């Protein structure tokens, strides 16, 4: 790597403009607070989603799962950890950008400080000295930014290859994908390396959580419904929509009052 690639990112002007244009458009449409998620999944595209789920299962069974097994078998754990560290370090500029768009300075500063430490002392993100000194990643995404701007989650969707999502979060994923500052700033061959690290990191996750993922995907009576439930409940939790003191959400079942 000839250039100091993770530090040398810069949003090209055109994309930045497209980005802010989108932001204004969304802000114009959105209300102030996102509506609370429905108690039962809003899934009007269920039959299409189920077809995509079947496709995803086949993709996992025939390609992703074997590749993840091979990856886990071939590379020693410290190497896999390093790959995972590099990949998450490359996400930090996007976390900062989303933090800024969310009006969340703590998120910007924490992820920025972390990026600075891990890109330098951590050797281009290979190591993670930031976490032990109390600067963990504060992960976010453009779907959360849309949530902060008041956009409701919309229908549940399962995306080919990407898996469970909602309409809002699918838009978020697309924006994060297209405008990730790290990818936008990098040129080949570094951009190819970055993509490689991200894919390898995903394989590492698939391998690491293999027992749990396999049981959901292959041992469930209805893996589509299980995946939907797990995704939506966890997503609501991430976005602070579990309403821990409020009277509802999908988290509270009282078996004594049924």
């Amino acid at each position, binding site marked *: 790597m000839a250039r100091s690639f993770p530090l040398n990112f810069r949003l090209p002007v055109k994309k930045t403009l497209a980005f802010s244009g989108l932001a204004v458009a969304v802000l114009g449409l959105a209300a102030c607070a996102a509506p609370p998620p429905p108690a039962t999944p809003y899934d009007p595209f269920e039959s299409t989603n189920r077809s995509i789920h079947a496709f995803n299962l086949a993709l996992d069974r025939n390609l992703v799962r074997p590749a993840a097994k091979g990856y886990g078998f071939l590379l020693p754990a410290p190497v896999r950890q390093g790959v995972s560290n590099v990949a998450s370090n490359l996400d930090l500029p996007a976390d900062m950008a989303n933090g800024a768009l969310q009006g969340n300075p703590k998120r910007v500063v924490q992820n920025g400080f972390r990026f600075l430490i891990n890109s330098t002392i951590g050797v281009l993100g290979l190591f993670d000295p930031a976490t032990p000194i109390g600067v963990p990643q504060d992960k976010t995404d453009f779907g959360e930014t849309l949530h902060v701007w008041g956009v409701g989650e919309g229908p549940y969707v399962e995306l080919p290859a990407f898996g469970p999502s909602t309409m809002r979060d699918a838009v978020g994923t697309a924006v994060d994908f297209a405008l990730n500052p790290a990818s936008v700033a990098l040129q080949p061959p570094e951009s190819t390396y970055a993509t490689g690290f991200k894919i390898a990191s995903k394989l590492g996750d698939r391998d690491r959580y293999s027992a749990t*993922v396999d049981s959901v995907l292959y041992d469930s009576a209805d893996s589509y419904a299980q995946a939907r439930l797990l995704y939506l409940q966890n997503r609501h939790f991430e976005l602070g929509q579990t309403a821990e003191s409020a009277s509802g959400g999908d988290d509270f079942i009282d078996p004594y009052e049924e």
Partner: protein
Amino acid sequence: MANLDFTRRGFGAALIAGAAGVALAGPAMALDLASARALINKAIGEVNTVINSGKSESAMFGDFERIFVRYADVSAIARSALGPAARSASASEMAAFTKAYQGYISRKYGRRFREFIGGKIEVVDAKPLKSYFEVISVAHLQGEAPFDLRWHVSNKSGRDLFFNIIIEGVNMLASEREEIGAMLKKRNGNLKALIGDLNAA
């Protein structure tokens, strides 16, 4: 990358929490932070003893089932998991289902317990919630970012027993209800067939 996106967050490491689930209840005592913490530490120690006992996996399942029965309100969990079908079931059918279900769930969650080795769960808060208590804990597993683990505890059965676990927002009872409902549907609503298959699973 099929379905990778959700794997990382919520339920990676998730069901391991079942191990700690056995933690909560035990003897009736005030559910203040200190006593809840003590109970959890004690029960985690108990589960760890089983995990590190060197017993065969099938022998461990029996141990886990005993711990589960002792600390969880198994009949309330089973009834909730069965959902609407529980209302039309006879008492003897419910008894058979509950028995089958407790074995099934001990095996299902027990298979994950080895991921829990070296882990640590600490209670950080406890508060009343609606008609029951929520105990909030943080799970630290090796090489994982700490995650949020909540226990819903009730004394409606006459003793303090836990009846639900929430792992980073993912609700065990809701997940079980979805799964058992789907299993029952696959068997055309035949509860007897479901009980037989749970016993075999």
